[in-house]
């Protein structure tokens, strides 16, 4: 989640008034009247009185801060940062590479460098091994020729 950044410039569009002004409920007085009216025909009259008292106390509790404005601010900050993050993510997902020719050639060369180096090493190894085999074969034929000349006389 993106944090609130105080250095970011303020938006130009004005924020609506309702965002910070908590409107009172139209039902508030009616509900209060209902709970204040003593109930009849209840076996649990004590319980009902306690319930009415608790409900009235609960309804008259007031927060110590402008809760609606604060709640909206906090939720909107999150939604705003999420909107920006999702826009950035969409842009990133659909981004196409747009490199200059030099960079592309450089990239191509750097991609090819490793396989070329490997091929060189393989070729060198291979040619060395083959030359060793050839020289070994030549030496063996010379030795066998010398042996034959010494033991059986020169062949015609």
């Amino acid at each position: 989640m993106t944090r609130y950044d105080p250095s970011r410039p303020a938006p130009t569009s004005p924020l609506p008034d309702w965002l910070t002004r908590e409107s009172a409920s139209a039902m508030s007085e009616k509900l209060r009247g209902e709970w204040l009216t003593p109930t009849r025909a209840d076996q649990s009259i004590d319980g009902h009185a306690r319930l009415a008292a608790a409900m009235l106390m609960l309804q008259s509790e007031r927060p110590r801060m402008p809760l609606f404005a604060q709640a909206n601010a906090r939720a909107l900050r999150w939604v705003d940062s999420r909107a920006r993050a999702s826009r950035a993510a969409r842009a990133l997902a659909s981004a196409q590479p747009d490199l200059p020719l030099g960079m592309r050639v450089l990239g191509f060369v750097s991609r090819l460098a490793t396989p070329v180096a490997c091929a060189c090493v393989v070729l060198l190894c291979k040619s060395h091994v083959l030359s060793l085999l050839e020289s070994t074969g030549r030496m063996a034929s010379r030795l066998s020729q010398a042996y034959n000349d010494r033991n059986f006389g020169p062949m015609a």
Partner: protein
Amino acid sequence: MTAFSLNLPRDVSAVLDSIDLSQVRSSHGWVLRAMRADGPALVRLLWRMLGREQDVLDAYQDTFCRLIGLGETGGEAPPHGYLFRTAMNIALDMRRRRKVRVDHLETAALARMALTAASDSAPPGESSLVESLREAIEALPQRLRDVVVLRDLAEMSYRDVSRILGITGGTARVYRREAIVALAARLKEC
């Protein structure tokens, strides 16, 4: 800079000033509409269910987070009742977590401190009665609890309650009556 006529805390004004509503409007416009139409009732409901400012702020934000997460595919508004149902569920979860936390406190004194921390100004008797009411509401069956929460805590009309819960106005009245009897019986025991 946008100037606010209300005496808001500086950090709240700064946050509100920094928000670009046009961005929010283009991607999650339904959030603004929901805040305007149902925000006050939602905050009232959460405040009365939870009784702590910070919890209300958390629950309010979580409600929109969860709904935005649900509507990820199209970015469209969820059905009307989802907002209140989600908020009620989040508030109930918070209360249950809080109760578990309190249960884990070792001494009764610590538990009492945690319970009365919500309202410093209220006398102990009052706060415990209100807390008993909150617990009694929490313990109600869901169909009764939904009606009581929306009608008495969010202060909504029966028409709105029935629209949100998908029941008739008559059914909502019957459920509320049942809920009041159950709450009175429970509070009598306290």
